[in-house]
């Protein structure tokens, strides 16, 4: 570290009673044009930065400032980056992972919450924020007794504002639908994009898995459930457009595997795929080291690489460049393109998380399902 951040320089020279004021006046982590300085205040034997940036050590030790129980770590971070992190605070034999107490910005996910660091150049997209002018869609629920999965499934269904039974709608089936609602703000995003005419009013089935890592791991029963059970039930309950170009699948991580596997198993049935940070692990030779749960995934992706076919006519693929899966996702794109699928690929300086997936929804949805933006002037 060539130069101490001005905050740290001031804090190291300040009397104890002035540090609180310095902290209150600052925003954490400390962002500058070239990167970020993480700061922790508290008694500890060690403090580590825990993040999920592939390519960097998973734990970075914070340095003690020497006074006032202040710890810091400097990380170069390119413009436009957005990362999630925690602090690991070690005291004796105890170790706790905590969100950054000095940073109010957190992102939730199914496992809890992480602190969020936004480098210069990252701005939360305006279309993800609440728009008081956007009409609200509604959520209904249908139940399906699935023979394929041997379970009764409750599926929430997003209906757009001004839904009319006499009109027909495009359909998107979202894997991990409830998580997309909770952690990616999917309902607000849909409301906003429909209001902005960037996507058409559409119906979105919010499908949730039972045992996720089994059901979404290239599972034939899941594919059959989606095509042979869920879709017919939706078709019966709601006015859907008939053509495959008006049917899409959405998924992130293992959900993207489930989406692609379903489309590959029933090619052309869902002609629009939005795949986010797909766990598309494969092997060119030998075995993989991602654990047993990936066995069926690797088997599927290896078969896909042998015979890609044309699962859908248009696919939007996105991945964070700080994810370990960036290589797999990049590899997928030319493979699918060579097989005749129109593919758009978007990378972001972000990780494997729900806000990354939220931020890519506009580009993906508006490309796969273009709205009447050019024709409608209300």
């Amino acid at each position, binding site marked *: 570290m060539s130069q101490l951040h001005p905050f740290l320089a001031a804090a190291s020279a300040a009397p104890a009673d002035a540090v609180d004021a310095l902290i209150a006046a600052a925003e954490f982590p400390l962002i500058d044009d070239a990167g970020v300085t993480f700061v922790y205040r508290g008694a500890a034997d060690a403090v580590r930065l825990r993040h999920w940036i592939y390519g960097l050590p998973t734990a970075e030790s914070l340095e003690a400032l020497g006074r006032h129980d202040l710890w810091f770590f400097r990380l170069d971070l390119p413009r436009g980056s957005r990362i999630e992190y925690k602090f690991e605070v070690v005291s004796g034999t105890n170790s706790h992972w905590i969100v950054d107490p000095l940073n109010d910005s957190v992102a939730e996910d199914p496992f809890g919450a992480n602190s969020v660091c936004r480098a210069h150049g990252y701005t939360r997209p305006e279309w993800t924020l609440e728009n008081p002018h956007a009409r609200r869609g509604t959520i209904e629920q249908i139940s399906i007794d699935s023979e394929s999965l041997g379970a009764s499934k409750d599926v929430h269904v997003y209906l757009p504002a001004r839904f*009319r039974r006499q009109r027909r709608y495009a359909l998107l089936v979202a894997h991990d639908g409830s998580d997309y609602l909770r952690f990616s703000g999917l309902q607000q995003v849909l409301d906003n994009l429909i209001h902005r005419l960037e996507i058409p009013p559409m119906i979105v089935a919010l499908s949730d898995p039972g045992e996720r890592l089994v059901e979404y791991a290239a599972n034939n029963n899941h594919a059959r459930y989606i095509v042979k059970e869920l879709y017919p039930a939706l078709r019966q309950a709601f006015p859907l457009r008939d053509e495959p170009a008006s049917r899409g699948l959405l998924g992130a991580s293992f959900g993207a595997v489930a989406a692609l596997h379903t489309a590959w198993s029933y090619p052309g049935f869902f002609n629009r795929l939005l795949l986010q940070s797909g766990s598309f692990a494969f092997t060119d030779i030998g075995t993989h080291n991602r654990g047993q749960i990936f066995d069926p995934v690797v088997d599927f992706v290896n078969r896909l690489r042998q015979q890609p076919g044309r699962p859908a006519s248009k696919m939007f693929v996105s991945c964070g460049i700080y994810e370990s899966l960036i290589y797999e996702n990049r590899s997928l794109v030319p493979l699918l393109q060579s097989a005749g699928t129109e593919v758009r690929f978007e990378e972001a300086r972000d990780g494997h998380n729900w806000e990354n997936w939220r931020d890519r929804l*506009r580009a993906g949805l508006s490309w796969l399902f273009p709205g009447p933006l050019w024709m409608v002037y209300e």
Partner: protein
Amino acid sequence: MPDIIILGPQADHPNLMDATRQIVTDGALCSITAGWQQREGEVQELQHHLDREVEDLHLYQRLDHALGLDPELADAHRTRQAGLRQRQRWYRRRLHHAMEAYLGLAAETGSSAALLAEQRSALNAIRALDRHHVRQIDAVHAVFNARWRPAHRPAMAEQRDAIVRRLDAAAAVLVAGGHVAALLSRLRLFGLESELREKRLIAWSAGAMALSERVVLFHDSPPQGPGHAEILDSGLGLLPRLLPLPHARERLRLHDPRRVALMARRFNPLQPVTLDAGSLIRVTGHKPVMAQGTARLTARGNLAGAPLA
């Protein structure tokens, strides 16, 4: 020709009531809400705002009904629509290259006579392409109308008679916004241009676009594509020289002099005018006589006051 008032979007800050009071003191009002498509005729909010009855003409549903009874015309209509879409694709493809050429030259630094001449020439190429496209679209309509005379087919004529009866009884007609192509095609298929020419009209957003000479689709920052404005069709031509731009503040980069100037120069002699919430332009005898909350895009790249008479 009776007065026409055009307005911006009515959703959040409606000024339809003020506009209506300007040109209609009493008498029946009817509405054309075909641009709302499947929501056509849901005029409760409109009536509430105006605090008076409004009878909708149901052009959207009437066309569906008539085409259901006249499958031959329905087929011909579908074929015509497919042909129009194809021509729009071809035009868009050519336009993209023409626009990129112009924008590339416009971004060059310098002000030499040679560069200015190239820029003018590139702009003229766009204007020529626009004119060509309008001729092609007009020709498609002319062939279709000559072959099918849609408004005179029995099923259509029955609907048209019902529409005209209502129009005759109305003191003024409200033409709502919405899907501009859906609205315009129905106005045209029912042959309502001459009837509307005799009525006081209050039109907003897509309604105003449909009444103008040219229907220009526009958005400077769409989520996909370069955002080059394109001509869709000729309008009904009831608003000479005005090119209404609804939602201009949202859709156009009005602070970008280059884009503003391009819009003004490209569509000259039409005057591009902004129509945002609160905008109102009143046209009497083909001339704008009153304007509120609107601006004219100028060839200098700025926004000027009222449209020129």
